[in-house]
């Protein structure tokens, strides 16, 4: 493992994907996808199922050959290399552990299959396995078989096995997909720490936006085989490039509106249009928890409260705005003043996003 952390290398491009396309029969899985990852970056490929994110990951691993495009890693043409020479550590969705091998044998596999001249000695392999076992906190389980482990433990064995070959890049396919919510959250934090410690460029695939936003340095959002947006979690969450991204990254409320010059009109509410908003009829999106309840004579969308549901620390407020029912979220143990079932209120979206109507 490389613990070197020179400042300059962090900005160096590690992975370059250029114009990658892939078709299955008549179904286009990837359409002209280009993106880059910096050295030691933690990149998430986020998208709904069928968006091509797993295909892209498999192209990086060499398990799929793209029909067109280029993949370079550290300047080297990756597509020219067969899978086994790419030295990518891949963690499969269902781990793909070798069920007839012990935990230790699984982790050591990548070392034992090396050519004789490159194969470490038995004791070196043993040491390395021990190091990795302690890294993934599975000391003492080396003699177990995969069937004798919990899901979280299997996941960590798969990770250790991938790290054993000192991969140039770590690829994770829905690494937490098969785990329950509790284990998921724990492993997520741990994986991020592990990444920082190991300092390997990591690409992981997920359909869980919370996971991607929480974990990654940058998030690439895919839909129907196309890259829709690439940016830091903050960038993509605060400035979703399309209504799809807005919708995919969290709960969304949508209203029709009009932009006229620098003014944004939604029903009877007029406000300043966000920078760069298109002119003319638009769709206005806002998050149901990013609203303020304005005084009845103030500025805001006229609404009527239809129901109030307390859910732990949160309150769900069902409102009728312009004939459509919208679920708003408020936090805190007490309701905003003036909110009760049957009462009229005014609602002011705090950070509306505006997209050309479509």
């Amino acid at each position, binding site marked *: 493992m490389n613990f070197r952390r020179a400042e300059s290398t962090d900005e160096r491009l590690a992975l370059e994907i250029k114009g990658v396309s892939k078709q*299955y029969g008549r*179904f286009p*899985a990837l359409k002209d996808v280009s993106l880059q990852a910096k050295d030691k970056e933690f990149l998430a490929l986020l998208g709904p199922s069928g968006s091509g994110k797993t*295909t892209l990951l498999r192209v990086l691993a060499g398990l799929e050959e793209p029909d067109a495009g280029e993949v370079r890693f550290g300047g080297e043409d990756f597509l020219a290399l067969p899978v086994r020479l790419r030295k990518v550590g891949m963690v499969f969705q269902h781990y793909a552990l070798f069920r007839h091998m012990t935990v230790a044998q699984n982790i050591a596999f990548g070392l034992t299959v090396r050519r004789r001249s490159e194969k470490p000695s038995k004791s070196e392999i043993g040491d390395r396995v021990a190091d990795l076992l302690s890294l993934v906190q599975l000391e003492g389980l080396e003699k177990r078989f995969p069937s004798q482990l919990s899901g979280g433990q299997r996941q960590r064995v798969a990770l250790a096995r991938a790290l054993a070959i000192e991969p140039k890049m770590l690829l994770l396919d829905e690494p937490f997909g098969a785990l329950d919510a509790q284990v998921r959250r724990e492993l997520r934090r741990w994986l991020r720490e592990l990444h920082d410690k190991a300092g390997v460029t990591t690409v992981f695939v997920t359909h869980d936006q919370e996971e991607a936003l929480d974990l990654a340095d940058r998030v690439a959002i895919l839909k129907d085989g196309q890259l829709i947006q690439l940016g830091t979690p903050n960038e993509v969450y605060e400035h979703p490039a399309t209504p799809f991204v807005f919708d995919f990254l969290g709960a969304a409320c949508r209203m029709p509106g009009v932009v006229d010059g620098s003014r944004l009109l939604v029903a009877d509410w007029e406000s300043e249009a966000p920078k760069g908003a298109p002119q003319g009829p638009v769709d206005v999106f806002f998050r149901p928890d990013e609203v303020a309840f304005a005084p009845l004579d103030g500025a805001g969308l006229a609404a009527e409260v239809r129901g109030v549901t307390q859910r732990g620390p949160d309150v769900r407020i069902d409102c009728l705005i312009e004939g459509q029912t919208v679920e708003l979220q408020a936090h805190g143990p007490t309701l905003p003043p003036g909110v009760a079932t049957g009462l009229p209120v005014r609602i002011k979206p705090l950070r509306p996003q505006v997209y050309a109507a479509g």
Partner: protein
Amino acid sequence: MIDAVAPGASRPLFRIVLPGIAPLMLLASAAAMAGLILLPLGVVFQEALAKGLMPYLAALKETDAIAAVKLTLLVAAISVPLNAVFGVAAAWTITKFEFRGKSVLLTLIDLPFSISPVVSGLVWVLLFGAQGIFGTWLIDHDVKIIFATPGLVLATILVTFPFVARELIPLMQEQGSDEEAAALTLGASGFTTFWRVTLPNIKWALLYGVLLCNARAMGEFGAVSVVSGHIRGLTNTLPLHVEVLYNDYDSVGAFAAASILAGLGIITLVLKTVLEWRHSGELSASRKH
């Protein structure tokens, strides 16, 4: 094969990774299949028709041959239904109830599979043969079992004993007994439950088992050869008839009779394959491919 849903799962990995090996493997498999399976099958018909169609048909019309066919059908007609009834009863006992000694019972049901057909014939001779346990009694009362049809039936039953049960047990185990329990809570009687719920669920597997059982029953050679006595026209089933003619150097006659049996084998294969394709969901897991 159904196209896999996930992109990439159905990708032919090996066409890319092992370009040189695939045709080699295919060739080797084809050669092995041809030498071991296809050629023998072809030889049967070639030899049967070696002297033309007329001698072939004449051999089939011969009285001993017709008697052999009739005897073969009779033996199968008795032993297959008996084994089918047993198979259903055994599968019902084993899959719908929990009791001690179940695995012993399972092993015993499989036992005839691991016994030589010759031994399966031998045991009946030991029981009913001239020097068998009941030998003298049978001679005194002028009852013939060995060297007669009852012996052939008994030997055939023993050899084909597990076929139906073996097909039903894994399937019924997969299916569990929730549906039967539901029928009972809805007021169905035990018999109605079996007839209207269980039987429809297992009918294809039952047919499959009966098919295999029948193929073996009609084609059985070792076991019946021990109890038959090879009396032409009387105790020769079709496979035994083949042997007798072959040993008499009547090649056309032997292969003509063999061609009927080979035809039976082919029909069995076709029906079996159709069942596997059409009703794979209603056969036990090991039959789904």
